[in-house]
């Protein structure tokens, strides 16, 4: 038994040695500027909306809607996956990435119909984010209520 464990351990070290590593510094730099750019565009949209006399809450909500729309549009035009390939987390973390994670399975599973395809599969990737995001917000809300 020990011999097998040793073999597995030795092999795992071999695999780590042979497998090429991603360029972390380059990937971080790309994620930083693309993620930053998406956020800057968001801020720009907010400022423009506010200049039309909307307050901060309204402007934030409209910005979110516009960014989600842009994420969906770029996904549908087969562009967002290329951005994601380049930017990694830089385009996954902003809300445009959230839109991409919902629309891409919806497109993929359209062939299985609108109920068991699009409807059922739409949240396969975003689902966990929604579940744990909601739970986290409830916990934060309780803490805020108790210690405000």
């Amino acid at each position, binding site marked *: 038994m020990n011999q097998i464990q040793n073999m597995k351990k030795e092999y795992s070290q071999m695999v780590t040695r042979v497998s090429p590593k991603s360029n972390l510094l380059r990937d971080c730099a790309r994620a930083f500027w693309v993620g930053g750019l998406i956020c800057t565009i968001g801020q720009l949209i907010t400022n423009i909306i506010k200049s039309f006399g909307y307050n901060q809450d309204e402007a934030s909500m409209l910005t979110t809607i516009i960014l989600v729309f842009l994420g969906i549009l770029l996904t549908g035009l087969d562009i967002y996956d290329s951005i*994601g*390939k380049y930017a990694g987390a830089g385009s996954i973390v902003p809300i445009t990435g959230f839109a991409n994670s919902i629309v891409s399975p919806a497109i993929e599973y359209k062939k299985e119909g609108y109920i068991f395809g699009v409807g059922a599969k739409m949240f396969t990737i975003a689902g966990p984010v929604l579940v744990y995001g909601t739970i986290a917000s409830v916990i934060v809300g309780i803490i805020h209520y108790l210690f405000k």
Partner: protein
Amino acid sequence: MAKKLGNQTIKFDLPPSIVSTASTVGPKEGKGPLSSYFDVVLHDPLWGEDSWEKAESKMVKKTIERVIEKGNLTPEDIDYIFAGDLLNQLTASTFGIRGLAVPFFGLFGACSTMAEAITLGAMAIDGGFANYIVAEASSHFCSSEKQFRFPLELGTQRPLTASWTVTGSGAVILGKFGPSPYVTYATTGKIVDLGIKDPMNMGAAMAPAAADTIITHFEDTGFLPSDYDLIITGDLGSVGRELLLELLRKHNYDIENIYTDCGIEIFDSVTQDTHAGGSGCGCCAVTLAGYLYKEMKNNKWNRILFVPTGALMSPGSTQQGESIPGIAHAVTIENNWA
């Protein structure tokens, strides 16, 4: 009677001939280094169908029809089809073959399916149960991504160890009599699992199985690497290649100067952005049906060891934290046999 050698190898008494081959590949494979060897290169990965699965089934059907036609045979001449793919319940194969009215064995050996099909087909012929069989395997990049990974439009990064599933279907007809090359030996692999859990590094998961099968083949037959002009694995890719060579060196077999991998040959990893290389059942199937068969006909090689490799995991097994069981089957194909 076919003789069994050692623990896992068969020597065919009357080695079946590879009567004809046919291959269909997708657009990306059609831009790769082996492009000129393929019979049909698709311009559209959907091939006029409305889903990836239907497109893959159409590839299976058309490739089998073509291989039968190229062998100057009719479907009635074929005793059995041995075929498989990567999709759940062998969707691509069964739906592709359903209209052909030929007895069918559906096989799942992940990306090692082509060797499994050839081995079983050759056994059926050498055993006197068939005169002609079709061995076929297919995979489709888009249907595989959908089943095993992520939706195509999802903006993610693939690690450098990941492979690129080949869109393609390759088929061969084995016949009791016919011209060279012939299938002379088959070494059926055991499942080997050294604990690799990363489905984005399948070369690493399968390399130990390939090493085990190749070493067993040498031990069972008494052959040495020098007895072969070429040893070619299925889809270990560049990472698996290094691991395989190192594992074999530990057992005092050096095959480096006669070794390559279908996954490395089929794409140009630099210009085609395929990272570790090609993979999928179709990868070694189209490489055999196109490149290897045609170059054996040209006598570039006279004796090759074809070793398709498979990673026998499912999306569920990976999510449940299981490691990836690897398998590899070796088939000797040669122009002359005595």
